[in-house]
Protein backbone atom coordinates (compact mmCIF):
# COMPACT_ATOMS: atom_id res chain seq x y z
CA UNK A 1 0.00 0.00 0.00
CA UNK A 2 2.72 2.53 0.96
CA UNK A 3 5.66 3.25 -1.35
CA UNK A 4 9.21 2.84 -0.05
CA UNK A 5 10.87 6.11 0.94
CA UNK A 6 12.52 8.23 -1.77
CA UNK A 7 14.14 11.61 -2.26
CA UNK A 8 11.86 14.13 -3.89
CA UNK A 9 12.60 17.00 -6.25
CA UNK A 10 10.19 19.45 -7.77
CA UNK A 11 12.09 21.40 -10.40
CA UNK A 12 10.56 24.55 -11.83
CA UNK A 13 12.22 24.48 -15.25
CA UNK A 14 12.92 21.75 -17.80
CA UNK A 15 16.62 22.65 -17.65
CA UNK A 16 16.63 22.02 -13.90
CA UNK A 17 14.73 18.75 -14.33
CA UNK A 18 17.17 17.30 -16.86
CA UNK A 19 20.07 18.48 -14.73
CA UNK A 20 18.72 16.49 -11.76
CA UNK A 21 18.29 13.44 -14.02
CA UNK A 22 21.87 13.80 -15.28
CA UNK A 23 23.26 14.05 -11.74
CA UNK A 24 21.41 10.94 -10.53
CA UNK A 25 22.05 8.35 -13.25
CA UNK A 26 20.03 5.18 -12.81
CA UNK A 27 18.46 6.24 -9.52
CA UNK A 28 16.02 9.02 -10.44
CA UNK A 29 12.61 8.52 -12.04
CA UNK A 30 10.35 11.13 -13.58
CA UNK A 31 6.94 11.51 -11.92
CA UNK A 32 4.17 12.96 -14.10
CA UNK A 33 0.54 12.10 -13.26
CA UNK A 34 1.67 9.05 -11.29
CA UNK A 35 -1.09 6.78 -12.58
CA UNK A 36 1.35 4.04 -13.54
CA UNK A 37 4.39 4.84 -11.43
CA UNK A 38 2.68 5.30 -8.04
CA UNK A 39 0.77 2.04 -8.46
CA UNK A 40 4.03 0.19 -9.12
CA UNK A 41 5.69 1.88 -6.16
CA UNK A 42 2.81 1.01 -3.84
CA UNK A 43 3.15 -2.64 -4.76
CA UNK A 44 6.93 -2.20 -4.38
CA UNK A 45 7.39 -3.39 -7.95
CA UNK A 46 9.30 -0.14 -8.39
CA UNK A 47 11.52 1.44 -5.72
CA UNK A 48 13.14 4.51 -7.25
CA UNK A 49 15.58 6.29 -4.94
CA UNK A 50 14.57 9.68 -6.24
CA UNK A 51 11.46 11.11 -7.89
CA UNK A 52 11.68 14.14 -10.11
CA UNK A 53 8.16 15.56 -10.05
CA UNK A 54 7.65 17.41 -13.34
CA UNK A 55 4.14 18.54 -12.33
CA UNK A 56 5.30 22.13 -11.81
CA UNK A 57 6.90 22.61 -15.24
CA UNK A 58 4.72 25.21 -16.93
CA UNK A 59 6.77 24.73 -20.15
CA UNK A 60 5.26 21.27 -20.55
CA UNK A 61 1.62 22.33 -20.33
CA UNK A 62 -0.86 22.93 -23.09
CA UNK A 63 -1.88 21.86 -26.57
CA UNK A 64 -0.66 24.06 -29.42
CA UNK A 65 -1.73 24.34 -33.03
CA UNK A 66 1.27 23.89 -35.33
CA UNK A 67 1.39 26.21 -38.35
CA UNK A 68 1.35 23.25 -40.80
CA UNK A 69 -2.03 22.12 -39.46
CA UNK A 70 -0.55 19.71 -36.92
CA UNK A 71 -0.72 19.61 -33.17
CA UNK A 72 1.81 19.74 -30.33
CA UNK A 73 0.87 18.14 -27.03
CA UNK A 74 2.98 19.09 -24.01
CA UNK A 75 4.22 16.33 -21.74
CA UNK A 76 1.91 17.36 -18.88
CA UNK A 77 -1.28 17.33 -20.95
CA UNK A 78 -3.73 14.87 -19.40
CA UNK A 79 -6.13 12.63 -21.27
CA UNK A 80 -8.95 14.79 -19.92
CA UNK A 81 -7.40 17.94 -21.38
CA UNK A 82 -7.22 16.31 -24.80
CA UNK A 83 -10.88 15.23 -24.60
CA UNK A 84 -11.86 18.77 -23.56
CA UNK A 85 -9.80 20.46 -26.30
CA UNK A 86 -11.80 21.50 -29.35
CA UNK A 87 -8.51 22.00 -31.19
CA UNK A 88 -7.28 18.47 -30.50
CA UNK A 89 -10.56 16.71 -31.14
CA UNK A 90 -11.20 18.54 -34.42
CA UNK A 91 -7.66 18.34 -35.86
CA UNK A 92 -6.91 14.78 -34.78
CA UNK A 93 -10.15 12.89 -34.02
CA UNK A 94 -8.22 9.65 -33.49
CA UNK A 95 -6.92 10.94 -30.14
CA UNK A 96 -10.34 11.23 -28.53
CA UNK A 97 -11.54 7.97 -30.09
CA UNK A 98 -8.82 6.07 -28.26
CA UNK A 99 -8.69 8.18 -25.09
CA UNK A 100 -12.41 8.03 -24.29
CA UNK A 101 -11.99 4.35 -23.37
CA UNK A 102 -8.72 4.57 -21.44
CA UNK A 103 -9.01 3.67 -17.77
CA UNK A 104 -11.72 5.68 -16.05
CA UNK A 105 -12.51 9.33 -15.38
CA UNK A 106 -10.12 9.56 -12.44
CA UNK A 107 -7.25 8.05 -14.43
CA UNK A 108 -7.97 10.31 -17.41
CA UNK A 109 -8.07 13.38 -15.15
CA UNK A 110 -4.54 12.72 -13.92
CA UNK A 111 -2.77 10.46 -16.43
CA UNK A 112 -0.78 12.14 -19.18
CA UNK A 113 -0.53 11.10 -22.82
CA UNK A 114 3.24 11.49 -22.66
CA UNK A 115 3.44 9.41 -19.47
CA UNK A 116 1.72 6.55 -21.23
CA UNK A 117 4.12 6.80 -24.17
CA UNK A 118 7.21 6.99 -21.92
CA UNK A 119 5.95 4.05 -19.86
CA UNK A 120 5.36 1.90 -22.98
CA UNK A 121 3.15 -0.69 -21.36
CA UNK A 122 2.62 -3.25 -24.15
CA UNK A 123 -1.14 -3.20 -23.42
CA UNK A 124 -1.51 0.60 -23.52
CA UNK A 125 -3.43 2.41 -26.21
CA UNK A 126 -1.51 5.60 -27.03
CA UNK A 127 1.50 3.90 -28.67
CA UNK A 128 -0.71 2.55 -31.47
CA UNK A 129 -2.24 5.99 -31.92
CA UNK A 130 1.01 7.95 -32.21
CA UNK A 131 2.37 5.33 -34.62
CA UNK A 132 -0.63 5.66 -36.94
CA UNK A 133 -0.40 9.46 -36.79
CA UNK A 134 3.33 9.41 -37.62
CA UNK A 135 3.92 11.58 -34.59
CA UNK A 136 7.35 12.56 -33.43
CA UNK A 137 8.50 12.76 -29.85
CA UNK A 138 10.57 15.65 -28.59
CA UNK A 139 13.16 14.61 -26.05
CA UNK A 140 15.39 16.81 -23.86
CA UNK A 141 18.50 16.06 -21.88
CA UNK A 142 21.46 18.03 -20.57
CA UNK A 143 23.05 17.72 -24.00
CA UNK A 144 20.13 19.28 -25.86
CA UNK A 145 17.01 18.35 -27.75
CA UNK A 146 16.36 15.56 -30.23
CA UNK A 147 13.26 14.54 -32.13
CA UNK A 148 12.45 10.84 -32.52
CA UNK A 149 9.89 9.38 -34.89
CA UNK A 150 7.34 7.26 -33.04
CA UNK A 151 8.24 4.39 -35.40
CA UNK A 152 11.66 4.09 -33.80
CA UNK A 153 10.61 4.84 -30.22
CA UNK A 154 8.94 1.69 -28.88
CA UNK A 155 11.55 -1.02 -28.40
CA UNK A 156 9.99 -3.58 -26.07
CA UNK A 157 7.79 -4.07 -23.03
CA UNK A 158 8.36 -0.91 -20.94
CA UNK A 159 11.44 -0.17 -23.04
CA UNK A 160 11.75 2.87 -25.27
CA UNK A 161 14.41 4.89 -27.00
CA UNK A 162 14.41 7.31 -24.00
CA UNK A 163 17.66 7.29 -22.05
CA UNK A 164 17.59 7.56 -18.26
CA UNK A 165 18.66 11.20 -18.31
CA UNK A 166 16.09 12.21 -20.93
CA UNK A 167 12.73 13.87 -20.54
CA UNK A 168 9.95 13.52 -23.09
CA UNK A 169 8.77 17.12 -23.49
CA UNK A 170 6.30 17.14 -26.37
CA UNK A 171 4.38 14.97 -28.81
CA UNK A 172 4.22 16.49 -32.29
CA UNK A 173 1.50 15.26 -34.60
CA UNK A 174 1.95 16.42 -38.19
CA UNK A 175 -1.02 17.56 -40.29
CA UNK A 176 -2.76 14.46 -41.59
CA UNK A 177 -3.30 14.05 -45.35
CA UNK A 178 -6.55 15.66 -46.49
CA UNK A 179 -9.49 13.34 -46.84
CA UNK A 180 -8.21 10.58 -44.58
CA UNK A 181 -10.45 8.90 -42.04
CA UNK A 182 -9.32 7.66 -38.63
CA UNK A 183 -10.54 5.00 -36.25
CA UNK A 184 -9.51 3.05 -33.16
CA UNK A 185 -10.81 -0.44 -32.43
CA UNK A 186 -9.75 -2.62 -29.53
CA UNK A 187 -10.53 -5.67 -27.50
CA UNK A 188 -10.51 -4.57 -23.88
CA UNK A 189 -9.60 -6.78 -20.98
CA UNK A 190 -12.96 -6.44 -19.19
CA UNK A 191 -11.62 -5.87 -15.66
CA UNK A 192 -8.65 -3.58 -16.26
CA UNK A 193 -9.76 -1.92 -19.50
CA UNK A 194 -6.27 -2.28 -20.96
CA UNK A 195 -6.14 -3.48 -24.55
CA UNK A 196 -5.61 -7.16 -25.29
CA UNK A 197 -5.25 -5.89 -28.84
CA UNK A 198 -5.74 -2.35 -30.15
CA UNK A 199 -5.62 -1.05 -33.72
CA UNK A 200 -5.38 2.58 -34.83
CA UNK A 201 -5.99 3.31 -38.51
CA UNK A 202 -5.45 6.41 -40.65
CA UNK A 203 -6.67 5.55 -44.14
CA UNK A 204 -7.60 7.54 -47.25
CA UNK A 205 -8.48 7.13 -50.91
CA UNK A 206 -7.61 9.27 -53.90
CA UNK A 207 -9.56 8.73 -57.10
CA UNK A 208 -11.01 5.38 -56.05
CA UNK A 209 -7.90 3.70 -54.73
CA UNK A 210 -6.25 3.65 -51.33
CA UNK A 211 -3.29 6.04 -51.18
CA UNK A 212 -2.79 6.41 -47.42
CA UNK A 213 -2.76 3.47 -45.01
CA UNK A 214 -1.11 3.76 -41.62
CA UNK A 215 -1.94 1.12 -39.05
CA UNK A 216 -0.61 1.11 -35.48
CA UNK A 217 -1.08 -2.03 -33.42
CA UNK A 218 -0.73 -2.46 -29.65
CA UNK A 219 -1.21 -5.33 -27.21
CA UNK A 220 -0.11 -8.00 -29.66
CA UNK A 221 3.65 -8.04 -29.22
CA UNK A 222 6.17 -6.72 -26.67
CA UNK A 223 6.09 -3.32 -28.30
CA UNK A 224 3.51 -1.49 -30.38
CA UNK A 225 4.29 -1.58 -34.10
CA UNK A 226 3.23 -0.34 -37.54
CA UNK A 227 1.53 -3.17 -39.41
CA UNK A 228 3.51 -2.51 -42.58
CA UNK A 229 2.44 -5.71 -44.32
CA UNK A 230 -1.18 -4.66 -43.91
CA UNK A 231 -0.41 -1.18 -45.20
CA UNK A 232 1.44 -2.50 -48.26
CA UNK A 233 -1.38 -4.90 -49.08
CA UNK A 234 -4.03 -2.20 -48.78
CA UNK A 235 -2.35 0.57 -50.80
CA UNK A 236 -3.56 0.65 -54.39
CA UNK A 237 -6.65 -1.45 -53.78
CA UNK A 238 -10.21 -0.14 -54.01
CA UNK A 239 -10.65 -0.44 -50.23
CA UNK A 240 -13.62 -2.77 -50.64
CA UNK A 241 -14.52 -5.37 -48.03
CA UNK A 242 -12.50 -8.12 -49.74
CA UNK A 243 -9.39 -5.96 -50.07
CA UNK A 244 -9.60 -4.87 -46.44
CA UNK A 245 -10.00 -8.43 -45.17
CA UNK A 246 -7.11 -9.64 -47.32
CA UNK A 247 -4.86 -6.85 -46.04
CA UNK A 248 -5.90 -7.27 -42.39
CA UNK A 249 -4.89 -10.93 -42.57
CA UNK A 250 -1.28 -9.69 -42.28
CA UNK A 251 -1.93 -7.89 -38.95
CA UNK A 252 0.31 -10.05 -36.77
CA UNK A 253 2.95 -10.75 -39.42
CA UNK A 254 6.60 -10.35 -38.50
CA UNK A 255 6.10 -9.97 -34.75
CA UNK A 256 6.39 -12.41 -31.83
CA UNK A 257 2.77 -12.61 -30.71
CA UNK A 258 2.41 -12.54 -26.93
CA UNK A 259 0.56 -15.04 -24.80
CA UNK A 260 -0.82 -14.51 -21.30
CA UNK A 261 -3.76 -15.43 -19.06
CA UNK A 262 -6.06 -13.15 -21.06
CA UNK A 263 -5.29 -14.44 -24.54
CA UNK A 264 -2.99 -17.07 -25.98
CA UNK A 265 -0.97 -16.31 -29.09
CA UNK A 266 -3.38 -17.94 -31.56
CA UNK A 267 -6.39 -16.06 -30.22
CA UNK A 268 -4.44 -12.82 -29.89
CA UNK A 269 -3.24 -12.97 -33.51
CA UNK A 270 -6.79 -13.65 -34.68
CA UNK A 271 -8.09 -10.72 -32.63
CA UNK A 272 -5.37 -8.54 -34.16
CA UNK A 273 -6.65 -9.42 -37.65
CA UNK A 274 -10.27 -8.77 -36.62
CA UNK A 275 -9.61 -5.42 -34.96
CA UNK A 276 -7.27 -4.19 -37.69
CA UNK A 277 -9.99 -5.03 -40.22
CA UNK A 278 -12.63 -3.20 -38.18
CA UNK A 279 -10.39 -0.17 -37.66
CA UNK A 280 -9.71 0.09 -41.42
CA UNK A 281 -13.41 -0.28 -42.26
CA UNK A 282 -14.38 2.38 -39.73
CA UNK A 283 -11.61 4.74 -40.84
CA UNK A 284 -12.70 4.49 -44.48
CA UNK A 285 -16.29 5.04 -43.36
CA UNK A 286 -15.17 8.27 -41.69
CA UNK A 287 -13.02 9.44 -44.63
CA UNK A 288 -14.16 12.59 -46.44
Amino acid sequence: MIPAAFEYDRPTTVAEAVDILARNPGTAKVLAGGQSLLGLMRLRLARPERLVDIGGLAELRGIRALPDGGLAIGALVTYREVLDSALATSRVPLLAMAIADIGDVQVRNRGTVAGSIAHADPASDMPAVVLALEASLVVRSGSGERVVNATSFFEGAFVTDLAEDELLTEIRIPAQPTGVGMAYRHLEQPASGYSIVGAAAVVGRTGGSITTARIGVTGVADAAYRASAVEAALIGTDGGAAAIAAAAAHAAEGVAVGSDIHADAIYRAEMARVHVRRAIEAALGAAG
Partner: protein
Amino acid sequence: MTEQVRLTVNGVPRDVEVEPRRLLVQTLREDLGLTGTHVGCDTSQCGACTVHLDGRAVKSCTVLAIQADGHVVTTIEGMAPDGGLHAIQAAFWAKHGLQCGFCTPGMIMSAADLLESNPDPTDDEIRHAIEGNICRCTGYHNIVAAIREAASTLRAGTDVPAAANA
Protein backbone atom coordinates in the same frame (compact mmCIF):
# COMPACT_ATOMS: atom_id res chain seq x y z
CA MET B 1 12.78 13.62 5.92
CA THR B 2 9.52 15.52 5.86
CA GLU B 3 8.34 18.49 3.85
CA GLN B 4 5.85 21.22 4.56
CA VAL B 5 2.79 21.08 2.31
CA ARG B 6 -0.13 23.47 2.07
CA LEU B 7 -3.44 22.16 0.77
CA THR B 8 -6.76 23.94 0.62
CA VAL B 9 -9.13 21.26 1.83
CA ASN B 10 -12.86 21.93 1.65
CA GLY B 11 -12.13 25.63 1.45
CA VAL B 12 -9.77 25.77 4.44
CA PRO B 13 -5.97 26.13 4.08
CA ARG B 14 -4.25 23.26 5.90
CA ASP B 15 -0.51 22.97 6.53
CA VAL B 16 0.84 19.48 7.02
CA GLU B 17 4.29 17.93 7.41
CA VAL B 18 4.56 14.90 5.17
CA GLU B 19 7.12 12.43 4.00
CA PRO B 20 7.25 12.63 0.20
CA ARG B 21 5.92 9.07 -0.03
CA ARG B 22 2.74 9.96 1.91
CA LEU B 23 -0.35 9.38 -0.21
CA LEU B 24 -2.98 12.09 -0.40
CA VAL B 25 -5.55 9.67 1.03
CA GLN B 26 -3.36 9.07 4.11
CA THR B 27 -3.01 12.78 4.69
CA LEU B 28 -6.74 13.31 4.38
CA ARG B 29 -7.69 10.42 6.66
CA GLU B 30 -4.82 10.27 9.13
CA ASP B 31 -3.39 13.80 9.28
CA LEU B 32 -6.62 15.72 8.80
CA GLY B 33 -9.14 13.23 10.22
CA LEU B 34 -11.32 13.29 7.10
CA THR B 35 -12.28 9.63 7.16
CA GLY B 36 -15.17 9.97 4.72
CA THR B 37 -12.63 9.18 1.98
CA HIS B 38 -12.18 5.40 1.97
CA VAL B 39 -9.50 2.97 0.86
CA GLY B 40 -10.77 -0.16 -0.84
CA CYS B 41 -7.88 -1.56 -2.84
CA ASP B 42 -4.16 -1.57 -3.51
CA THR B 43 -4.36 -1.24 -7.25
CA SER B 44 -6.00 2.11 -8.16
CA GLN B 45 -9.14 0.30 -9.24
CA CYS B 46 -11.96 0.70 -6.71
CA GLY B 47 -12.45 4.48 -6.62
CA ALA B 48 -13.49 4.49 -2.93
CA CYS B 49 -10.76 7.09 -2.37
CA THR B 50 -12.06 9.52 -5.02
CA VAL B 51 -11.77 13.22 -4.12
CA HIS B 52 -11.60 16.34 -6.26
CA LEU B 53 -8.22 17.89 -6.96
CA ASP B 54 -8.67 21.34 -8.50
CA GLY B 55 -12.27 20.40 -9.26
CA ARG B 56 -11.57 17.06 -10.98
CA ALA B 57 -12.20 13.57 -9.62
CA VAL B 58 -8.96 11.74 -8.82
CA LYS B 59 -8.05 8.62 -6.87
CA SER B 60 -6.38 10.00 -3.75
CA CYS B 61 -4.52 6.70 -3.25
CA THR B 62 -2.73 7.40 -6.53
CA VAL B 63 -1.63 10.97 -5.81
CA LEU B 64 1.13 11.92 -3.38
CA ALA B 65 0.14 14.50 -0.78
CA ILE B 66 3.16 16.50 -1.89
CA GLN B 67 1.86 16.56 -5.48
CA ALA B 68 -1.22 18.35 -4.14
CA ASP B 69 0.91 21.07 -2.51
CA GLY B 70 -0.64 24.44 -3.37
CA HIS B 71 -3.75 22.84 -4.81
CA VAL B 72 -7.43 22.64 -3.88
CA VAL B 73 -8.92 19.41 -2.55
CA THR B 74 -12.59 18.69 -1.97
CA THR B 75 -13.66 15.60 -0.06
CA ILE B 76 -17.10 14.19 0.64
CA GLU B 77 -17.11 16.23 3.87
CA GLY B 78 -16.89 19.39 1.78
CA MET B 79 -19.84 18.67 -0.49
CA ALA B 80 -22.42 20.21 1.84
CA PRO B 81 -20.45 22.37 4.23
CA ASP B 82 -23.57 23.67 5.99
CA GLY B 83 -24.28 20.30 7.57
CA GLY B 84 -27.11 19.48 5.19
CA LEU B 85 -26.96 17.19 2.21
CA HIS B 86 -25.73 18.01 -1.26
CA ALA B 87 -28.28 17.25 -3.98
CA ILE B 88 -26.28 14.18 -5.01
CA GLN B 89 -26.19 12.88 -1.43
CA ALA B 90 -29.94 13.47 -1.07
CA ALA B 91 -30.59 11.59 -4.31
CA PHE B 92 -28.50 8.60 -3.16
CA TRP B 93 -30.64 8.51 -0.05
CA ALA B 94 -33.96 8.94 -1.86
CA LYS B 95 -33.16 6.39 -4.58
CA HIS B 96 -31.48 3.80 -2.33
CA GLY B 97 -28.18 4.31 -4.16
CA LEU B 98 -26.28 2.57 -1.36
CA GLN B 99 -26.35 -0.46 0.84
CA CYS B 100 -23.20 -0.77 2.99
CA GLY B 101 -22.12 2.72 1.92
CA PHE B 102 -18.42 1.96 1.53
CA CYS B 103 -18.27 3.02 -2.11
CA THR B 104 -20.67 5.94 -1.69
CA PRO B 105 -18.30 8.86 -1.00
CA GLY B 106 -16.26 7.96 -4.07
CA MET B 107 -19.38 7.45 -6.19
CA ILE B 108 -20.66 10.87 -5.19
CA MET B 109 -17.37 12.58 -6.00
CA SER B 110 -17.30 10.93 -9.45
CA ALA B 111 -20.93 11.86 -10.01
CA ALA B 112 -20.15 15.46 -9.09
CA ASP B 113 -17.34 15.59 -11.67
CA LEU B 114 -19.73 14.24 -14.31
CA LEU B 115 -22.60 16.60 -13.54
CA GLU B 116 -20.32 19.61 -13.60
CA SER B 117 -19.46 19.07 -17.26
CA ASN B 118 -22.59 17.20 -18.34
CA PRO B 119 -25.72 18.35 -16.50
CA ASP B 120 -28.06 16.03 -18.40
CA PRO B 121 -26.28 12.70 -18.88
CA THR B 122 -27.84 9.59 -20.40
CA ASP B 123 -27.74 6.36 -18.39
CA ASP B 124 -24.89 5.18 -20.61
CA GLU B 125 -22.92 8.34 -19.87
CA ILE B 126 -23.56 7.88 -16.14
CA ARG B 127 -22.31 4.30 -16.28
CA HIS B 128 -19.22 5.38 -18.24
CA ALA B 129 -18.56 8.10 -15.63
CA ILE B 130 -18.59 5.67 -12.69
CA GLU B 131 -16.46 3.07 -14.44
CA GLY B 132 -13.67 3.84 -11.98
CA ASN B 133 -15.84 3.16 -8.93
CA ILE B 134 -16.60 -0.36 -7.80
CA CYS B 135 -19.70 -1.19 -5.75
CA ARG B 136 -19.96 -4.65 -4.21
CA CYS B 137 -23.56 -4.26 -3.00
CA THR B 138 -26.03 -2.43 -5.17
CA GLY B 139 -25.57 -3.81 -8.66
CA TYR B 140 -25.26 -0.16 -9.75
CA HIS B 141 -28.88 0.18 -10.89
CA ASN B 142 -29.94 2.44 -8.03
CA ILE B 143 -26.70 4.39 -8.18
CA VAL B 144 -27.46 5.26 -11.81
CA ALA B 145 -31.02 6.20 -10.81
CA ALA B 146 -29.68 8.40 -7.99
CA ILE B 147 -27.27 10.25 -10.28
CA ARG B 148 -30.05 10.76 -12.84
CA GLU B 149 -32.26 12.15 -10.08
CA ALA B 150 -29.48 14.41 -8.78
CA ALA B 151 -28.93 15.72 -12.31
CA SER B 152 -32.55 16.70 -12.61
CA THR B 153 -32.57 18.36 -9.16
CA LEU B 154 -29.44 20.32 -10.02
CA ARG B 155 -30.80 21.33 -13.44
CA ALA B 156 -34.01 22.58 -11.85
CA GLY B 157 -31.81 24.61 -9.51
CA THR B 158 -34.16 23.78 -6.65
CA ASP B 159 -32.92 23.30 -3.13
CA VAL B 160 -32.56 19.86 -1.68
CA PRO B 161 -36.03 18.69 -0.55
CA ALA B 162 -36.58 19.52 3.11
CA ALA B 163 -37.37 15.90 3.97
CA ALA B 164 -33.91 14.80 2.91
CA ASN B 165 -32.35 17.33 5.23
CA ALA B 166 -34.46 16.43 8.22
